[in-house]
């Protein structure tokens, strides 16, 4: 047999090594190809915009507040079939979640915060120059707006009503300001909560474009930030600043109110989502059963509310319709879909300025704002025009019209919280199961929802007393 030929083997090993080197040189570029064209590591402005354009996450607002408020009743035994959190929130039960975690009213706003933080942390990696500075600023402003909006919505449910005397010690919500999921969630104080919201919004004011987009209404603009500021100031009863912000908003956005006479009241969704009043589009979380399109008939409008609309008030037919037995139910709202509008619109800003003016003693100014708004709401030529002779009278009129104009916008719960803090003494009662449940103004703990049990279990943060 031939002796083992080392020279030939050697040549071969060299050849193979050479081949290996060629492979190694090209392999890093070979292996750099994306495994799926639908996968992205967000790193460009377009990527960040696409994250903020995810309206299935970003444009969603909690529903448990509206369910706890007094705009509707669950008809036809529908209460029994509701999801556990909706069912318990409806009767202000002390336990809302029945031991179930993954509550969307908590999780989705924090998901929005996470998206906003991913964008805010990614933006410094994008070089700013004259060609992209406007977009860069707009995206940063939008992320700040998104985070503030989420924090605000969370605070309305899970933090106690703002009280300047105790806000420094009352427990607010966790303020997550980084996308790092390893950071521990800790509750801030109520004061810190609102300070952060206001800080983010005022910073956003300096960055956002002043025009409301005609089409992409999910993208925040300066007027939207100003409207949100007005809403936040109103919720902490800083009426002077609320009026100021509302005023700047109406100056930045001179867009017109819709004349309801031009709407077709016979169709299911008379108001288009691209209407002239909408500043920022958002809608209620889609898990809701009682406040979604298919259930509208079970969502019976509170009769006091329904009767408060005059017969020539077009909102009676634009907002509502009646079943064959005459019971009024929802028709849909400012976004033309089965999910209720939870965003910002100019009518709310008029009402905030009117309330601010009334509270500042400017009752004529308040009535002027109110009349500008309501003249577009009544049947052509029938609007009587409102007037007031005292600030208190003006305030009462504004608050009543506020309830009528902004019903089912997710605002009533916050109003109940702040008005009862001021002694308005509004008591709500419900009877879905043969027992009468009431929510009295003195039941302060019931105005703050408990934090979902899984969050408590993970973080050990203190629970709200209930």
């Amino acid at each position: 047999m031939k002796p083992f030929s080392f020279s030939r083997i050697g040549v071969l090993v060299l050849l193979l090594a050479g081949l290996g080197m060629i492979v190694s040189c090209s392999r890093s570029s070979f292996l750099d190809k994306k495994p799926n064209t639908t996968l992205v590591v967000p790193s460009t402005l377009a990527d960040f915009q696409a994250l903020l354009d995810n309206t299935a996450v970003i444009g969603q607002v909690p529903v448990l507040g509206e369910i706890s408020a007094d705009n509707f009743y669950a008809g036809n035994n529908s209460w029994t079939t509701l999801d556990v959190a909706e069912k318990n929130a409806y009767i202000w039960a002390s336990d809302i979640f029945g031991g179930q975690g993954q509550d969307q009213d908590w999780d989705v706003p924090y998901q929005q915060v996470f998206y906003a933080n991913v964008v805010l942390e990614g933006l410094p990696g994008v070089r700013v120059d004259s060609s992209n500075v406007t977009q860069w600023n707009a995206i940063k402003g939008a992320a700040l707006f998104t985070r503030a909006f989420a924090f605000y919505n969370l605070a309305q449910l899970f933090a106690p009503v703002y009280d300047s005397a105790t806000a420094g010690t009352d427990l607010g919500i966790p303020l997550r300001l980084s996308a790092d999921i390893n950071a521990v969630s800790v509750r801030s104080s109520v004061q810190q909560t609102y300070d952060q919201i206001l800080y983010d919004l005022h910073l956003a004011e300096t960055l956002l474009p002043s025009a409301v987009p005609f089409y992409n209404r999910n993208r925040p603009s300066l007027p939207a930030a100003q409207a949100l500021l007005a809403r936040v100031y109103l919720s902490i009863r800083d009426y002077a600043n609320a009026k100021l912000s509302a005023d700047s908003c109406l100056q930045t956005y001179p867009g017109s109110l819709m004349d309801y006479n031009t709407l077709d009241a016979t169709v299911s969704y008379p108001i288009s989502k691209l209407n002239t009043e909408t500043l920022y589009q958002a809608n209620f979380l889609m898990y809701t059963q009682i406040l979604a399109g298919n259930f509208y008939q079970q969502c019976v409008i509170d009769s006091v509310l329904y009767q408060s609309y005059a017969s020539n008030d077009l909102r009676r037919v634009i907002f509502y319709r009646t079943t064959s037995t005459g019971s009024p139910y929802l028709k849909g709202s400012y976004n033309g879909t089965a999910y209720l509008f939870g965003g910002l619109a100019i009518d709310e800003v008029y009402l905030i300025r009117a309330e601010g003016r009334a509270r500042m003693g400017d009752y004529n100014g308040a009535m002027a704002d109110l009349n500008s708004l309501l003249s577009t709401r009544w049947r052509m030529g029938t609007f009587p025009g409102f007037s007031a002779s005292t600030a208190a009278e003006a305030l009462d009129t504004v608050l009543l019209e506020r309830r009528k104009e902004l019903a089912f916008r997710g605002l009533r719960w916050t109003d109940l919280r702040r008005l009862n803090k001021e002694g308005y003494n509004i008591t709500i009662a419900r009877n879905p199961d043969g027992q009468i449940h009431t929510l009295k103004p003195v039941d302060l703990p019931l105005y703050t929802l408990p934090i979902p049990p899984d969050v408590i279990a993970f973080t050990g943060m203190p629970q709200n007393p209930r």
Partner: protein
Amino acid sequence: MGFIKTVLLVLLSATCLLEGTTVYCQSTAPTSFTLTEKNASLQKTLTDIQGMSGYTFVGEGDWPKMAHLLSFSVKNVTLKQLLDTCFRDQPLTYTLKGTAIIIGIRPLKEEWVHGYVQDTNKQPLSGATVYIRGSPSEAVTTKENGEFRIRTHYTDAWLVFTNFNFETRQLQPEDGKDLIVQLKDRIVELTDVSVMATVHTGYQTFNKETATGSFSKVDNELVNRRVDPYILNRMDGVTSSVLFNKNLVSGSNASAITIRGRSTIFANPDPLIVIDNFPYSGDVNNINPDDVESITVLKDAAAASIWGAFSGNGVIVITTKKGRYNQAPRLSFNTSLTVGQKPNLYYQPILSSNDYIDVEQYLFHKGFYNQQVNNPQHLALSPAVEILYADSLGQLSHADAQTQLDALRGQDTRRDLDKYFYRHSLNQQYSLQLAGGGTRNQYFLSAGYDRDLSNLVRNEYNRITLNGNNTYCLVPQKLEISTGLSFTSSKMYNNNSGTISTIYPYSRLADANGNALSIPYQLRASYADTAGGGQLLDWHYRPLDELRNADNTTGLIDYRLNIGARYTIRKGLNARVYYQYGQGSTDVQNYQSQLAYSTRYLINEYTQPGPGGTFTMPIPLGGIFDDIVTSYQANNIRGQLYYDDSAIAGGILNAIAGAEMRDVEGNINTTRLYGYTKGEASSMAVDYVDVYSLYSSGQQTRIPYLDQKTGTSDRFVSYYTNAAYTYRHRYILSASARRDESNLFGVKANQKGVPLWSVGGAWEVSKEDFYHLSWLPFLKLRVTNGYNGNVDRNVSAFTTANINNINNIYGATNFLIVNPPNPSLRWERVNILNAGIDFSTKKNHVGGSLEYYIKSGKDLIGQSPVDPTTGVVQFTGNTSDMRANGIDLTLHTNADIGRVHWNSVLLFSFVRDRVTTYKASLGPVINYFYPGTPNPLAGHPLYSVYAFRWAGLDPQTGDPRGWLDGKITNNYNNVLNSSDLSNLVYKGPANPPYFGSWRNSFNWNHWEVSFNIVYKLGYFFRRNSISYTSLFSGISHGHPDYERRWQKPGDELYTNVPSMTYPANLSRDNFYQYSEVLLEKGDHIRLQDLQLSYDILRNNVHRLPVRSIRLYGYANNIGILWRANHQGIDPDYIMSIPNPRTLALGVKVDF
């Protein structure tokens, strides 16, 4: 590495010891002889023997010149054995007298021996060499029909039969009889009793004898035993440790085939399928089983780790047929016809029409339908509810209503379905093959055509396969080039889903003349009748017309191109290069003409009323054409060195090393055309941007936009080596190592790779000198350990976002974050320890193997829950572990009962897998019941059957009762939502831990009968029962358990079916559905199939115009022999209808 070194040292020192013993024996025991001769004369050899033993020798005549030269090596043999070796095949004989060896001349007896050489398929083998042992010069070759004639010179001469591609055999001819000799594939020298098989790993082919790893092989005979157009089905029930899972639930990440249990949770669970050396990227159903030579299943680390990161679920290697050198062209034709029964539509129990209408009446009187009746969206009501409603309004007299309801009570949708939607299935297969080769080339060509008319009317599958491969020996002994081309084209007609879109069980689909009838669906009949005042398209749903008008086809084209070269550098060392290009596309074309309900529905819904009673139609008239094209292109290239030498330290070294690159690019294109009319090829633009109010509900929405294009790219670079060293034919040591690198997304380059390895050893005890068990002449022990891998390409180390399929409500592209950053991401690994025994008794009467293994899945991708305040609810990472252990037993027996040869193979597998670490809690116990996801719980199998403890029905109300924290309760919410897992009872695995088959075949003359019995034992399933919630809401058909429901106190003594309540309580229904009373044992034994064949050979029938004809029949899905449940449920078909029985007849002709 330390471990490998230690093993090497131990084995080396063991072999040294054995050598030492031999030397010692030789010097002290003169009665045993050890002697090696090389090309020595007999005389020299006898002189050597004389020196060792003192025996002298003497002979007659010129014997030293007559004797052949001798080359042999013997150890510790007796003198007689030694002399037998020396005089074997000599023209001389010897006798012992005292201490003298007397040499005589063997008496001449000239004789002709006549016979035929065949392969194991009884195909004649031409070009085989036949010679007399000891006189290779006197050789003849077999003719085209395998016939040979050779002249022998002595009475007890041995004949040797060899052929390049076959194992050599030696036989002694019997007087005057034709000798029929069958040769097995491949040349390997082995003892008669060995369990011979070659195995293909996709990288190399070797004899199973020299393997340390665990392989199962489905040989050609077994591949052909079953008549089925799909290759993988032919493995079902005949392959050890391979479980075919039925009852797959989508979303649960279960695989249709598992090899040795489960070792991943969320990553790909499917075994790797290798065809012609490379992983196959297309659909394995494209392979024509007639083109398949054999299938090898690689089960343990030593066998499969050569496939590295792809091998964690086992590997199935499909080897296609090739030609042979020196073989005359051989043409064969095979055809079969399979007829199947209609499926039994009554197998899945549903509520009778009578009971269903009773329930509807009950609900109607409770006011259940009021909401629907008044709904402004005009939701459909069932015919019975419409009658009740009309009755309640006085539009119909009570008597008329009753008559109409009674008519419905007598109807059953399944009658019409059976009549118009189902038929007997008919499957035709044809294949033609040509194989052969000269001295310098070999070739194989085949063409196949399959036509499958399924049980569903208007559904059909047609497949054409073409295959050709050639091997050219360009430079003899040096360079061989091979090429191959495989082509598949198929068309599937998918016009019938076998069911209709409505739930109520009393639909009539056709009138007496077979004309389609409309039934209420989506919209109320009264609304569909009048909507649009005649200006809209017909808005009725007619299932039979849907069937008749459907035009949904899937066209497929797939081909593979193989090029390979083998260059022999020196004897035992060669270099190989393989390249394979594969490309395939499937094109799903669904043309929904304007006659289709879905098209009419869309056009109508988007119709916009204009001023003055006019209409505009944003979705144009005409059909809608959906087209989904899925395609792939695969490039594989591999360079490999192959080393095979028997001269290394007295042993045989077998080694390969190589590198390969693999790139599979996939594309999916989805398009939709509106206003399309087939044949005119014109479509119309629609406005995807504006929002329209839907006609029936007023809801605002845009026209569905489906166009989409996505691409995937799987790239790998791998380096591998595999070596086996066989010493003295009995000690085998194997080792392999492989590194895979991939374009895993967002991972740093040094984390893109994973190194995997294996080591193994085997010991053929029966070859040892001290081994004397004559009844068990073959015994081999082996053990291996190593790592296989698995890829989950959905995770990443960076924050990754996915482009949402759906644009947002403003039409903007948007991203969904799928992954928070995970810098410590690793690949999944599976450690497998395997120990086995192979054995065989004398003449292979009983043989088989027994294996034990432990599989440990490590660093498995799993989810762990995270504080949702972070913005992420669950985090996906390397957080889980699994462990499986099991036993595989294969036992085959051979026996002759009179003239009948009986062969039986028993397969038994036991596997128990369980999740050992899983950090996420699924939360409330109810989540462990959800079938649509994997529900891992540490300590139990991934697919487990859990239940709630049952405390009987409440004697007062008929409510089901359960246990919570040790107390009887009917608070179902608390039971379902408890997070205390002690309220969950683990009943057993959902997949059978014991399974296998027992196959028997009987051969008599040219007849063969075989049948296969398969069994699955030791597992549980949950049977269906009544859920009032889903019955009321029209989601399910209900269940006849309804008739056994609790109705009055006392009923609880003989029934467990809860009373009907209104409104239905979902938690109550769920509790009952998941309680232990609805669990059944899945154990069953099935007579899977029966096969019968008869061979007519020209050797027997001389007037036969062809070489041979095989006639065969095959009956499949014959029936269950025994089952543990008493509900009449076939545990392989819990939610579906059992595969109907089929009967196939076929003929195979060899020309």
